[in-house]
């Protein structure tokens, strides 16, 4: 079924993107892009990227934007068109919006994402909401900025599959509308770096930091429940969450931007074997493309930051994800291996998973069931008010899921009746 896109929805600034985009045959489970665009418009209405979102310090906002890519209406419009354009994939079925679906909290709500030909990668698709405020991009920080991030999936063989940037440019370069839009945005013909820049500009519009919790911080005592208020105290105290998820006006997204091994993949993999495998591959070619393949396409993905830095201290370390809107972006962790926030709390409550590289800050927390519920309730108050309905639905769903199944709950470990490194007989493989 083909629908015509209403011009008014698509227009942001002067450029219309019309109905030039072909609808992909295979959506890989994503919502039809027309529906996504309809959902997007009210979400971003009134946002002026030149000024920045009202919840972010204007100095920080300005500093986060590269000098050669000041967001203009033309750049944002171009980025938005590219974000929804499946021609940026080799077989014309995958766009940014496939895995960062605007109707699904700008992610795909899957454990790991599906690319061309139904291939499934190893990493959970992080939401593009507030991604502009992250210290680095990807779970392993292999790109510094959105501009760099946006270009890599297009040439990843599992994701969008172009052999190189030039091939991707060729796929859209014949489109007169693009030629005109690139001209308006960057005063150049279509080129790969500007594709990255434009998508980044569009992503800078996706700031969602207006949550009930913020109203609470501004003095509205009724904005969040008593349960959530207790959760906030636990977040900063017994739960130790704020060690890695500092949440304050200077850091509104709740990520320290650092890389921590919390043991998620220690359940399935021997880090040392993987590290040696990765080194063998990287010894042959240390290119960005090799790295991208290792990160998305094989078990070595579990090495996280190590792939980028090749430092032993980074084995199994992943960048602390932002905590904003976490309620609506399940499943969790770099591999999407946790279905609910209860699972996440259970994981941290038991002290993560013991492995030689476990971050020293991860230790058993002895949280009670009520305390876990308080922390979960608190986390759901971090969802932007524009997603209040989705948030309520997700909360109810997760609560039911958690009632049925708590695969990571381990009371003996949480309460230190059994010690983490004694839990498995010493020396046995994790």
């Amino acid at each position, binding site marked *: 079924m083909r629908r015509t896109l209403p011009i008014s929805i698509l227009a942001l600034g002067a450029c219309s993107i019309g109905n030039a985009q072909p609808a992909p045959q295979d959506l890989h489970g994503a919502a039809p892009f027309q529906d996504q665009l309809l959902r997007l418009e009210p979400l971003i209405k009134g946002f002026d990227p030149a000024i920045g979102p009202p919840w972010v310090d204007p100095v920080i906002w300005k500093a986060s934007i590269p000098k050669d890519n000041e967001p203009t209406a033309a750049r944002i419009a171009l980025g938005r068109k590219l974000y929804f354009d499946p021609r940026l994939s080799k077989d014309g079925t995958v766009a940014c919006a496939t895995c960062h679906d605007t109707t699904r909290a700008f992610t795909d709500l899957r454990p790991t994402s599906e690319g061309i030909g139904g291939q499934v990668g190893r990493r959970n698709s992080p939401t593009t909401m507030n991604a502009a405020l992250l210290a680095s991009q990807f779970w392993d920080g292999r790109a510094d900025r959105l501009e760099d991030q946006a270009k890599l999936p297009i040439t990843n063989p599992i994701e969008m599959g172009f052999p190189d940037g030039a091939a991707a440019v060729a796929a859209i370069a014949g489109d007169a509308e693009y030629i005109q839009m690139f001209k308006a945005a960057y005063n150049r013909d279509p080129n790969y770096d500007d594709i990255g820049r434009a998508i980044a500009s569009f992503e800078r519009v996706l700031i969602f930091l207006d949550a009930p919790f913020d109203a609470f911080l501004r003095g509205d005592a009724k904005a969040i429940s008593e349960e959530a208020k207790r959760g906030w105290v636990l977040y900063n105290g017994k739960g130790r969450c704020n*060690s890695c998820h500092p949440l304050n006006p200077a850091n509104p997204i709740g990520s320290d931007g650092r890389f921590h091994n919390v043991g998620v993949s220690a359940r399935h993999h021997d880090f040392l074997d993987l590290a040696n495998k990765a080194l063998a591959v990287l010894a042959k070619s240390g290119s960005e493309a090799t790295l991208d393949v290792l990160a998305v396409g094989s078990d070595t993905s579990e090495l996280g930051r190590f792939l980028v830095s090749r430092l032993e201290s980074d084995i199994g370390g992943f960048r602390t994800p932002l905590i904003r809107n976490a309620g609506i972006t399940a499943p969790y962790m770099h591999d999407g291996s946790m279905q609910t926030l209860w699972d996440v709390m259970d994981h941290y409550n038991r002290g993560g998973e013991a492995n030689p590289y476990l971050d020293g800050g991860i230790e058993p927390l002895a949280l009670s069931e009520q305390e876990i519920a308080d922390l979960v309730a608190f986390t759901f108050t971090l969802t932007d008010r524009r997603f209040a309905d989705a948030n309520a639905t997700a909360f109810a769903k997760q609560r039911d899921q958690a009632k049925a199944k708590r695969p990571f709950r381990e009371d003996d470990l949480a309460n230190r009746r059994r010690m983490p490194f004694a839990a498995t007989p010493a020396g046995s493989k994790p």
Partner: protein
Amino acid sequence: MSRKHTSVETRYMEEREQTLRGLEGLSRRGFLKVSAAAAAGAATLVGGMSRHSFLPVRIAGAQPGDKGFRFAYISDSHLYEEKVNDRFVRGLLRAVDDVNRMDPQPDFVLYGGDLAQLGQASELQLGQQILKTLKAPLKMMVGEHDWFLDLGDKWRELFGPELYSFDHKGVHFVTLMSVVEKDFWTERKLTPMERMKTVAGLDNGAQRSFEVGEAGRKWLADDLAKVPKSTPLVVFSHSPLYKLYKKWNFWTDDAEPVQALLKPFQRVTVIHGHTHQILTNRIGNIHFHGMLSTAWPWPYAPEGLPELTIQMDRPDPFNPSDGCGDGSFDVHPDGLVDSIYRLWNRNPVSVKASYVATGKTDRPPTNSRRGY
């Protein structure tokens, strides 16, 4: 002319200022270049990984295991009973787990002393129970925290004599008891626990200094009399066998006479606990290596730090086990010893005999926490 005093804060601000000024000249592109160069450097260094560490363990031609050998260490766990404090218990468990994962297994594991915090039977027994899960043979050394509640009764019962030696693959190993103190408690009428807690404290003028003591020196002299001077010698002592900082007992009062006994040997390495940090020294031909603690890292002493020591970074306060760890020693066929510090959540640091001997070659990295 008196040197103008600069406070720690002032020095910090000056260094910070300097760093920031340095950064100004570094554009983003320049920074990336620097990073790329660093990455390339790391890539060439990290040739392959041993199971114990991803250190650039490419000590070409002299890789222990060919002819030399490796032993591991765990030290200074300061155990309380689990119900009092389980963090230190988890630290020791983690170290045992680390060592048990080493492939190939080390020839033996040295425990560097201070297994207990207050010398109590329950603490020592808990430690023994955990150390029993080690796969490799265990060599025990006593520390002052194990000793001063009952002057060694329980420790001896569990682990045997505190002074002993053994030979392994051509190297003569000696384990000393270097934390003897002259009686300061009888006169003050201290209870055993008061005595223990006095010794356990820093900056406590009531206690005396550590020493090997006359009896210990006599035993050592007799033991070494049987060993040819050409035999490589490795000495374990809980306190450093030199004088670093008296107020914290980073100190052995009879260091000079003890060193005099070791000096005639051509290759001597002293491995000590107590200081909970990377600590490197050489006096004449005697190499000294400090061991890491599994419980906490000490700050460096305000004075007396040996010139060869390249300080490890300040621990990250958010990471309770940062600056802690375990490690191993590679004994080369010639009897010289490299110390490998396996710091948890940091990159391992290798302090090689070649560095200790020359102060120049194989200089360890000044920043061991590049991962951050």
